[in-house]
């Protein structure tokens, strides 16, 4: 039997100083903290694993799949090795599975006890055999045999300077016992609640929590853990493993906090379940429920003025104006149905979003547009609407209702449908106030979340409801006449512009070939609808033939435009010049270097984002200020689905783009800028965040650093 075990190579390191052992996709090194062994003093030895990008190794509980790294020691008489330590892991999602482990590099420390009778001058041979599993899409086992020979010395030697940072990092990543905080755990059916609350005032403000269970079979690893702020403390909600192992009496494992529980970023948790249901704790996410409703309502109202909704809704007003002199009762029904359509479509989109998130998907608001198929579909839809406004064809009911036709066959259905459509076209736009309200909604129970979305929908529908219910307003609208036809045709152009933008978005997602196919489909659609319009008054059979042919052509166009396969590669090419691609690491390393960081959470399909980028973020005076203040500019591109960005947004209590976060080294929490930027808003924020720009602040906030600098200068 021949079974090829991939790359099962054992490399014997030379005794003396252990050389790094190279394995496929990973490299291992055994590093003593000091070159000398001192009698009676423990020696720390680190197993350092460096991984190729995209590859990972596992934590002590690997989660859904994997194997923990292990090390076996062979030591001289009198020496003994303690347990290998595990820095706090991270979540590694390989849908539909989730593992716990490490990416990049990891250092596992082990303390070796040295007997007090070790003779100075003697050589101490240390042998260790390490096994680890390195995985990306596939898994490769790796092993290394290490041999070190250390000299016993009565005085401890200096730590190896090449490794002091790695040792310090490993120690700071180690979970510490929970101190200064109270942890409680509850089980409520299939839901597990872990609550932490500071024991005294002045504790850091948390943005997020992640729990890593010590053993398998406790929580459903792949299901999203939801974080909420309570009136006193924080709560993390998890789901019981559907494949439970053993008794579940409490929660034991590691809890990681952003930014940390004071000195520790990660703490050890071992709490039994408290009896009974969890006491009700008022959730507060910066804003209360009534505030969130109000903000959502205001956001919905303003949504009407955003560039993606305005052209469509302007047409709607024309329709109302045309009916102005009809029956008031009919008009009122129309208004109510339109509002109902808006509410229903927001419910559908939000309900699906909540369901998918409950299923563990890393999605946020605007997820619809992360699918290139939806983008292509919307482009076709807007194009057809535009052709209709231009008068290329007149058909049926839907378009006429939108365009304000008075002879619609089924006015009720039209009103409802145009409401649905209005909400659909609104999705690329985020209005002011919306971000905070929706961010709040997503950490609430489903019912409260749906109420927030309802408030948003009602806000959006309000102007039309008012218009339809107050006849006095309608009478103020100009009388229908030729001007309406002119305006109608003119309004086709904003729609065509929208199509151009959607083609560009698709180009970002599916490449130039995808965009070209969509454009070709638009030509086919134009030809089909032109034929329909051209022969609209031909004989009955000719008319039907043309319509059937047009239908077939449009079906063909849809197939043609349908984007193939997966979204294209992350369009990092777009992140050019002064803007660097975002990552958690990029933020923290810039902050560690004392630089302020500006993060632009954006997406190609987000109109508001694009407007802000072009009019504000790349404006000459703003750019100049960025350079003067040494701000690191990072762009998080959410055009395609990206779990890391969704998680980062969640920590900022947001679920959609745009979000503009300005981090300053002196402050723990980033400053969030409004969704609609102006140059003065950005410039003011930069002024506040950058101490160097305002010496007055620099002196008052960092006296320690300036006195240190004086002491060091000769």
């Amino acid at each position, binding site marked *: *039997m*021949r*079974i*090829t*075990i*991939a790359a*099962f190579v054992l490399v014997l390191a030379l005794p003396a100083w252990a050389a790094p052992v190279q394995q496929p996709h990973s490299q291992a090194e055994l590093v003593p903290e000091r070159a000398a062994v001192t009698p009676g003093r423990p020696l720390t030895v680190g197993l350092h694993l460096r991984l190729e990008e995209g590859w990972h190794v596992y934590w002590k509980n*690997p989660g*859904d*799949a*994997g*194997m923990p790294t292990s090390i076996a020691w062979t030591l001289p008489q009198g020496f003994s090795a303690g347990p290998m330590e595990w820095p706090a892991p991270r979540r590694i999602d*390989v*849908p*539909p*599975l989730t*593992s716990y482990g490490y990416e990049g590099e990891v250092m596992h420390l082990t303390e070796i006890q040295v007997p007090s009778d070790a003779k100075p001058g003697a050589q101490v041979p240390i042998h260790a055999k390490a*096994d680890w*599993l390195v*995985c990306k*899409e*596939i*898994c490769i*086992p790796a092993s290394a045999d290490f041999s070190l020979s250390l000299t016993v010395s009565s005085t401890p030697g200096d730590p190896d300077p090449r490794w002091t940072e790695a040792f310090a990092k490993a120690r700071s990543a180690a979970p510490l016992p929970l101190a200064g905080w109270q942890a409680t755990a509850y089980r409520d059916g299939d839901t597990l609640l872990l609550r932490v609350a500071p024991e005294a005032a002045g504790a850091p403000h948390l943005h997020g929590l992640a729990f890593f269970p010590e053993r*398998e*079979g406790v929580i*459903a690893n*792949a*299901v999203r853990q939801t974080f909420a702020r309570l009136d006193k403390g924080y709560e993390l909600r998890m789901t019981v493993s*559907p*494949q*439970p*192992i*053993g008794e579940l009496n409490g929660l034991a494992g590691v809890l990681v906090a952003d930014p940390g529980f004071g000195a520790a970023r990660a703490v050890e948790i071992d709490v039994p379940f408290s009896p009974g249901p969890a006491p009700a704790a008022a959730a507060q996410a910066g804003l209360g429920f009534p505030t969130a409703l109000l903000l959502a309502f205001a956001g919905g109202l303003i949504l009407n003025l955003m560039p993606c909704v305005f052209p469509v809704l302007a047409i709607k007003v024309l329709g109302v104006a045309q009916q102005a002199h009809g029956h008031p009762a009919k008009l009122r029904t129309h208004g109510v149905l339109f509002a109902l359509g808006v509410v229903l*479509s927001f419910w*559908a*989109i939000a309900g*699906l979003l909540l369901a*998918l998130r409950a*299923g*563990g*998907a890393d999605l946020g608001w605007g997820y*619809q547009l992360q*699918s290139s*198929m*939806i983008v292509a*579909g*919307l482009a076709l*839809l807007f194009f*057809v609407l535009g052709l209709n406004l231009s008068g290329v064809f007149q*058909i*049926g*009911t*839907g*378009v006429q209702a939108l365009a304000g036709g008075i002879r619609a066959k089924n006015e009720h*259905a039209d009103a409802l*449908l145009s409401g*649905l*459509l209005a909400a*659909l076209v609104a999705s690329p736009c985020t209005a002011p106030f919306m971000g905070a309200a929706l961010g709040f909604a997503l950490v609430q129970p489903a019912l409260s979340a749906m109420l927030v979305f309802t408030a948003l929908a009602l806000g959006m529908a309000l102007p039309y409801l008012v218009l339809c219910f107050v006849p006095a307003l309608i009478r103020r609208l100009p009388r229908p006449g030729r001007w309406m036809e002119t305006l109608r045709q003119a309004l086709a152009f904003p729609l065509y512009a929208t199509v151009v933008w959607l083609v560009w978005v698709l180009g970002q997602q599916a490449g130039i070939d995808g965009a070209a196919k969509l454009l070709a489909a638009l030509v086919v659609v134009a030809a089909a609808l032109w034929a329909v319009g051209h022969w609209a008054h031909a004989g009955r059979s000719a008319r039907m033939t043309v319509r059937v042919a047009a239908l077939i052509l449009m079906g063909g166009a849809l197939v043609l435009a349908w984007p193939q396969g997966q979204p294209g590669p992350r369009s990092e090419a777009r992140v050019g010049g002064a803007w660097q691609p975002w990552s958690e690491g990029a933020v923290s390393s810039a902050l560690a270097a004392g630089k302020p960081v500006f993060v632009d959470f954006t997406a190609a399909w987000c109109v508001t984002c694009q407007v802000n980028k072009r009019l504000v973020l790349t404006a000459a005076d703003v750019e100049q200020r960025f350079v003067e203040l040494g701000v690191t500019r990072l762009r998080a591109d959410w055009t395609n689905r990206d779990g890391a960005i969704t998680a980062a947004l969640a920590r900022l209590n947001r679920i959609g783009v745009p979000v503009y976060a300005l981090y300053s080294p002196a402050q723990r929490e980033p400053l969030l800028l409004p969704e609609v930027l102006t140059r003065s808003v950005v410039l003011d924020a930069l002024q506040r965040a950058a101490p160097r720009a305002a010496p007055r602040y620099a002196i008052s906030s960092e006296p320690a650093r300036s006195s240190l600098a004086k002491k060091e200068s000769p």
Partner: protein
Amino acid sequence: MMKTFAASAIAAAVGLAAPVALAAVAAGQAAPDFTLTDIQGKKHSLSDFKGKYVVLEWFNSECPFVQKHYESSNMQGLQKKYGEKGVVWLTINSTTPESSNYRDPARSQQIVKEWKINSAALMLDPEGKVGQAYGARTTPHMWVVDPQGKVVYAGGIDDKPTFRVADVQGARNYVAAALDESIAGKAVAVPAAAPYGCSVKYKY
């Protein structure tokens, strides 16, 4: 026409490909029925084997943990031993054709021959439907189903989560224990244990 177009655009927005949430079948639950085609092209359903003990083994020939149990002849030995006692051993591969670990039926037939696999059938589940219905997470990941169709064991094959062939010796084999205890009319002492190995390479 316009109306249907708009309606289908909305339906498309709402009916977005939902990410698959992994279901799970734990010990004590009824084993859901399924039908899969084996590498010879023959269809098998779990319900065909009602009245018999059935072992479900999740398999991927390219996974070092699966190789551990075949290189040591541990898996073939169990398949043969319990096959002779009337236990139906079904080996299932849920690897997606998009993965480099995918082996088509022809190649799988060669592997069965080379490795002398003794299970009743090796079945491919390229869409991952059966794997996800059971919540198979690793290769290997094992289920033991009793003659009444109830799961009596779900989890790892043994208690030594390593890729070393030598660790098969001296490991406590949970599948053999569950079969022995259950056939003897006793309660299964360990009905669930953590599965270990490579992740199942699902289509996503």
